[in-house]
């Protein structure tokens, strides 16, 4: 006899989800929504919030004192992100491919060494690199002189032309281990049969990589890309540690994170402005949300369709 009874509501799922959902709501979702709410307020003289609608956003985009800093920070942020996409992720992919090669001795040692900076505190990374690049006693300039490239020496972290690139590359050095590990996990998962079959058909190692491996790890490439995007547009700590809250020199390394920090908490003689700070945070949220949506609909769906077909 067939049972007409419906399946009981899966209460155990609710029970298991509850702790995580509660903590996430309390410490992530609620503060985020509340700071979005605050961006629609201004403070009166005594510090009490007053609802002003979109006025803060008008101020941010409409007055030169604000919009100048904002567009500069956004542009720097795009440069910061581009350097990660163009250097960090390709290098990570290359390293992952090399480290998953069949005949490689000391794989674990390389992997650990390359991953190690990721586990370091950003303050240590910033300090060590500032010392290496220090114009008075840094070893980087000695290395350049030793290679006969002494004429290229710059005060790397002190001039607008090089400081942003230098800080971005520090960050790349620190974080390259993370995408590398993700790529390695994906590469290891590729069935040996496919690669052997390609080899039998006479494909070179390069062809195997471009025609077999890369297409199969495209979902991971997408995830790494979107993680880089989110991480970079939320970045703050390394710039703050090496270049200060002003993004020296002359806002040359100022990104959205430092711009937000300065505005929200104040800096030196400039008093903090929490409502404008949250306005900047809201814009950052919109930018990141836009990027993630683009990834979801532009990349992941297409990948899913492609894989569904194959």
């Amino acid at each position: 006899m067939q049972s007409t009874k419906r399946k009981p509501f899966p209460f155990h799922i609710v029970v298991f989800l509850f702790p995580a959902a509660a903590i996430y709501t309390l410490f992530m979702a609620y503060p985020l929504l509340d700071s979005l709410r605050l961006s629609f307020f201004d403070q009166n003289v005594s510090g009490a919030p007053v609802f002003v609608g979109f006025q803060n956003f008008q101020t941010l985009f409409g007055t030169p004192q604000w919009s100048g800093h904002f567009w500069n920070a956004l542009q720097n942020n795009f440069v910061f992100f581009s350097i990660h996409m163009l250097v960090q992720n390709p290098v990570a992919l290359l390293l992952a491919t090399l480290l998953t090669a069949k005949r490689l001795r000391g794989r674990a040692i390389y992997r650990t060494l390359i991953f190690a900076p990721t586990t370091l505190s950003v303050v240590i990374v910033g300090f060590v690199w500032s010392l290496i690049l220090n114009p008075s006693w840094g070893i980087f300039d000695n290395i350049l002189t030793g290679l006969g490239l002494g004429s290229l020496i710059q005060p790397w972290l002190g001039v607008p032309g090089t400081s942003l690139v230098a800080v971005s590359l520090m960050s790349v050095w620190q974080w390259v281990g993370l995408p590398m590990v993700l790529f390695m996990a994906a590469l290891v998962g590729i069935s040996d049969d496919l690669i052997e079959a390609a080899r039998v058909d006479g494909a070179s190692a390069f062809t195997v990589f471009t025609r077999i491996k890369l297409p199969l790890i495209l979902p991971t490439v997408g995830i790494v890309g979107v993680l880089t995007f989110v991480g970079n547009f939320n970045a703050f700590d390394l710039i703050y540690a090496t270049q200060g809250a002003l993004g020296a020199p002359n806002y040359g390394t100022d990104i959205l994170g430092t711009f937000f920090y300065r505005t929200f908490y104040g800096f030196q003689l400039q008093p903090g402005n929490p409502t404008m700070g949250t306005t900047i945070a809201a814009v950052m949220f919109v930018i990141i949300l836009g990027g993630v949506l683009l990834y979801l609909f532009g990349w992941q769906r297409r990948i899913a369709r492609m894989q569904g077909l194959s």
Partner: protein
Amino acid sequence: MQKMITRRHVITLAAIAALMFMALSQAHVKAAANVTLVIESWRTGDEAVWDTIIANFNKVHPEITVKFQPTKPDQYNGALSAKLSSGTAGDLITCRPFTLSLNMFKAGQLADLTKLPGLENFSTFAKHAWSTLDDKSTFCVPMASVLHGFIYNKDYFDAHGFTEPKTYEEFLTLLEKIKAEGSMTPLALGVKDGWAETSMGLDNIGPNFWGGQDGNNGLLAGTRQYNDKGFLAAFDALSKWTPYLGKGFEAETYSDSQNLFTSGKAAIFPAGSWEISGFEQSASFKMGAFKAPPPASASKCYVSNEIDIALGLNAASKNADAAKTFLSYVAGQEFETAYSQGLPGFFPLGNYKITLSDPLANTFLGWTQECGSTLRSSYLLPSPPNGTTDVETDLWNNLALMLSGKQTAQQTADTIQKNMAGWFKPDASMSATAAATMAATPK
């Protein structure tokens, strides 16, 4: 099977409960008699001085425990305002000068201390940075001022027969000689952090060019501009430093400069007097100091005497009475002596006769008798509304650009003036009060 509750158990439990109750009530009595005050400060290296001061204070007031709880200097302002608005700040607040503290007073975060016993020992000049613009209400007890000048490597000067410059022209000649001699960088100054070339550069040498406090008052009243004669001359004088700065000075931080000087790689350190104790500990050579040299044409010299640090009362403090007792002590001679002796380079502000045992600190203190005292102009200006960039921060960035050769003195001064004019409304009355205050200057 349940255990029987015997009479012995009951007695033991009752005894434990009674003991706990006694312990608790005792703790309660103790807390009522003993008050703990917490001092918020940005002075992270000063624990030793405060230990002495608090020990002295506790000889008179053993019932008040005082805890010194500093935050990193660059995080202090932000951390403090967050703590004040969330109600977790300490009872005693170390006050930054001028606008920041004034805003905190206006917002009701700092208590009014105008009637505090002990405050009568301070001149209006000393209290000016922590009073309302009309000088009627004071909200922090002045602790110390710092002076600007140049500290130099005396061993090196003596070895090459260099002497302290008397005029700005002599100063530039001296820099040229040191550069020609070649074994040392003439000036230990980098522009990476921004404030170094502003506080120790422009605010150090500038007052001699713009006429000290008169120039500052002119800025406040709108009769003087950053790009007019005197101020422009100061920018121009500073821009002459570029050839004498260290290799890669664009990326040289303040602590790099300190290390360059104390390790004997640079001859002159454009300094604030707060460096004295640190330098005396880490430098292995003899040091001397000369004041900012005025141009040969100037008739009067000025020294940047920055009233810098004070102590106020958190308006939300639950221990206001005990805190006021401590603040009155801070206003007294015993505190002032212990503080300026413990921290050579921080000079007392009260009307007391205090002799310093540190020779370098005494050299600095002597300048206040020869020259007029003046404050940093950008600190006197109000903060821009709405949290946009203030003049001080603008100076940091633009002076760095000027010294790196990216813009001329004229362009720099024009930029500063243009940005400031965007929000600053000159106020003649403000400057009249300030002028009256300065006329009453004892130093």
